[in-house]
């Protein structure tokens, strides 16, 4: 019997119970090479298998099918096959062969990029990532690819939905770096600067033994977003102590221009800041950060206006323009209007007198919604601290940890324990 046909029969037969599937898995691993050699006949094989029941088999065959070089026309046909498979496949079965699954998805990504239609794979990869995850806190290599495709296809909201899950378990640090970096960029695109800051902060402070390019790029964006959101950046307080020593020492050397930008921002002179941006436009453009830099300049105006709300109750538009170094009262009015609409300040503009009246934050913290918000925050934080203590316990029972700590532990005094020395570790 044709080995391929025998394999197909086995796949179809052994795909029902978990015990069968385990056996099937073994068989498939052995048959992997032979599958690759017969790649031409595989498309017909694929037609015979149903992706939802024979997921594991389908996966192996698909992997062999797509392993060679694929041209653009061929990609047109393979992309739907792969997307169909992803949507229909059985999650437990594919979790048995995660690397193959990831490989198939990566090929999907390449083909889709070749076809220049990244949006075609946004949905499928989202499903794929969800199916591969062991839990919502688990990070798979698919996450970073998914986010990259979201960025290219400009589907920021879909990307955001996956970012909402907190990630705690990571297989490969490199996945995390890419995930956080792309995630940061998506949040910047949606103007959720605090979340972007958190994600970029994770990249920059992650433990790493040697500097990588992702961290450098992330650091540049981190500086810019920090300026936009917090309005300050000090080199001395930039990296906390838990950041790796490599990062603390070397990151600044690669981001010299950004640090100088931050220093000139700190002087609070808009003219200087703009001059600096003008002279260095090319460099910022090379890093694809020019848009962000422009937002930084804009944020300086905002910050100056916000400072005025602390000192004045009413102020004429002319005075605002003078204090904030804008060119005319009209510009000042535009800025203030924009800020009111964005909810960054509370004010009313009196056009007849050319006056702006600054109001207090109307939030009184007395509504039901506020109480619910506080209550849910409390619950969330309690869950988090439970998780923290659980993790602490888990580590203190971990074998590796105990062996390392035990070796370095001080010898007990004789008074503490009545144990003969030969029994100490």
């Amino acid at each position, binding site marked *: 019997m044709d080995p391929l046909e025998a394999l197909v029969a086995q796949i179809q037969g052994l795909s029902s119970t978990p015990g069968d599937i385990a056996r099937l898995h073994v068989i498939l691993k052995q048959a992997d090479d032979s599958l690759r050699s017969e790649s031409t006949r595989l498309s017909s094989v694929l037609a015979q298998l149903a992706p939802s029941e024979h997921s594991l088999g389908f996966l192996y065959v698909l992997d062999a099918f797509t392993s060679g070089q694929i041209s653009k026309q061929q990609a047109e046909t393979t992309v739907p096959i792969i997307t169909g498979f992803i949507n229909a496949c059985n999650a437990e079965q594919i979790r048995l062969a995660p690397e193959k699954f990831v490989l198939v998805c990566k090929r999907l990504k390449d083909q889709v990029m070749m076809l220049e239609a990244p949006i075609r794979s946004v949905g499928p990869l989202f499903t794929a990532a969800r199916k591969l995850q062991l839990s919502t806190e688990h990070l798979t290599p698919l996450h970073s690819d998914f986010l990259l495709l979201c960025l290219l296809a400009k589907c920021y909201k879909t990307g955001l939905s996956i970012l909402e899950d907190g990630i705690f378990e*990571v297989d490969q640090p490199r996945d995390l770096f890419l995930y956080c970096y792309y995630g940061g960029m998506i949040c910047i695109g949606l103007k959720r600067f605090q979340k972007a800051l*958190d994600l970029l902060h994770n990249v920059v402070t992650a433990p790493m033994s040697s500097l990588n390019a992702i961290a450098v790029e992330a650091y540049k964006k981190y500086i810019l977003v920090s300026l936009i959101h917090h309005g300050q950046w000090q080199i001395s307080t930039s990296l906390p102590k*838990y950041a790796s020593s490599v990062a603390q020492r070397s990151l600044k050397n690669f981001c010299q221009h950004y640090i100088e930008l931050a220093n000139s921002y700190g002087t609070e002179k808009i003219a200087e800041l703009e001059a600096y941006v003008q002279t260095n436009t090319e460099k910022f453009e090379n890093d694809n950060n020019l848009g962000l830099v422009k937002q930084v300049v804009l944020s300086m105006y905002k910050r100056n206006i916000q400072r005025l709300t602390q000192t004045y109750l009413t102020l004429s538009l002319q005075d605002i323009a003078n204090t904030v170094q804008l060119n005319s009262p009209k510009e000042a009015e535009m800025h203030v209007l924009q800020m009111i609409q964005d909810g960054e300040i509370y004010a009313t503009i009196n056009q007849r007198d050319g006056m702006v009246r600054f109001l207090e934050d109307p939030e009184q913290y007395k509504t039901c919604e*506020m109480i619910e918000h506080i209550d849910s925050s409390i619950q969330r934080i309690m869950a988090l601290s439970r998780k*923290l203590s659980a993790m602490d316990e888990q580590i203190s029972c*971990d074998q590796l940890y105990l062996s390392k700590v035990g070796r370095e532990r001080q010898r007990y005094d004789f008074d503490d324990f009545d144990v003969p020395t030969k029994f100490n570790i």
Partner: protein
Amino acid sequence: MDADDDTCAPITDEIRANGGGEQRTRRPIISGDQLDIEAYASLYSGRTKIMRLLFIADHCSDEKIGNPSMKLDALRMAYDEIKKGENTQLMREVAQKINGRLGPSYELDSAWCDTVDRRAEQKKEKLENELNAYRTNLIKESIRMGYNDFGDFYYAHGQLGDAFKSYVRTRDYCTTSKHIVHMCMSVILVSIEMGQFTHVTSYVNKAEQAPDALDPITAAKLRCAAGLANLEAKKYKLAARKFLETNPELGSHFSEVIAPQDVATYGGLCALATFDRTELKSKVIDNLNFRNFLELVPEVRELINDFYSSHYASCLQYLGNLKANLLLDIHLHDHVETLYDQIRHKALIQYTLPFVSVDLNMMANAFKTTVAELQKELEALITDNQIQARIDSHNKILYARHADQRNATFQRVLETGREFDRDVRSMLLRSNLVKHDYNVRHLRKL
């Protein structure tokens, strides 16, 4: 309605006038006269008189009030004073500064210089021989006297470093606490002249720790010295306290360093710049001892009283008048600007404190500035968080603003919750990474 108007009108007039109107004030405002150099110089003796006169001569050309005749007067008096002493170095300096402008009798008298120098050489030899003799005899008291004489000699000739060293050497030979105090006083004097005020502080402490009780005059002298040291170190509050504790028995006993008028001025200004209202009342206005000093400088007394009774315009006017003369003072010169700024800021803050709303026009009137200037000053103070208020720039009113504690607390709580959330999440993530990394390395090792 009419009855109310009658009673309200005087009070509102009083507030509006704020001590500014001529006919309202009960005390006349004395303009700070141009400094009478002779009177000023007569308060001091010894080297400090010369140094002060030279300082005035150097600086009075900068001031608008100063005129060339004042400068020449100062130089002339300095010359006369130096001639009475034995300091040839200073003589040469003064002669150069005079530059022949005062006529032939005030030129560099080389003959006098040579005589003095020769005499100095002889005296020095004599002193050295005596000291050696004493040292071989090992009589403690005589050695101490010998070093003391050396110190005095060097001091008279302007070699302050050597004088300092000699005085310090007497320390090993001091037997009674009186000796120690004498040594400390000499060292303090030399240090003040040298401008090394860290030594002053340490030796003042030493003297105060001497076992026997100090007589009031010495105690007062030590307080003054400590006050001066603090003033130079810009610790105005401590300086004020020291000056205020000075005993009025000081009189003119410390004229080699400081006059009682100076004690009053320095103490008063520093206190005004740094004390709050209660301290100002208890330690300055109600201080009977200090009142004796304040009688000597009525302008300072008036200005402190005006500040306390919120007549800011007259207070600031006194300050303005005194400024020119204070800038000619050798110790206060560098600190006048800072002290004045601090006093002005305090006045502004104190003015706004009791009110819920303040009309900026009235306030500008009270402080004799324009509304625009006043607004700028207030803005700086508000940004600095020294005044809790907001400005209504349209109607030119300042409204007091008290932070809503309840809202602020809610905001802080939510913010803390968010920060905790963020930090713990990233911490858990990082620990996972480290664990993973460690596992991988461990597996690789196995």
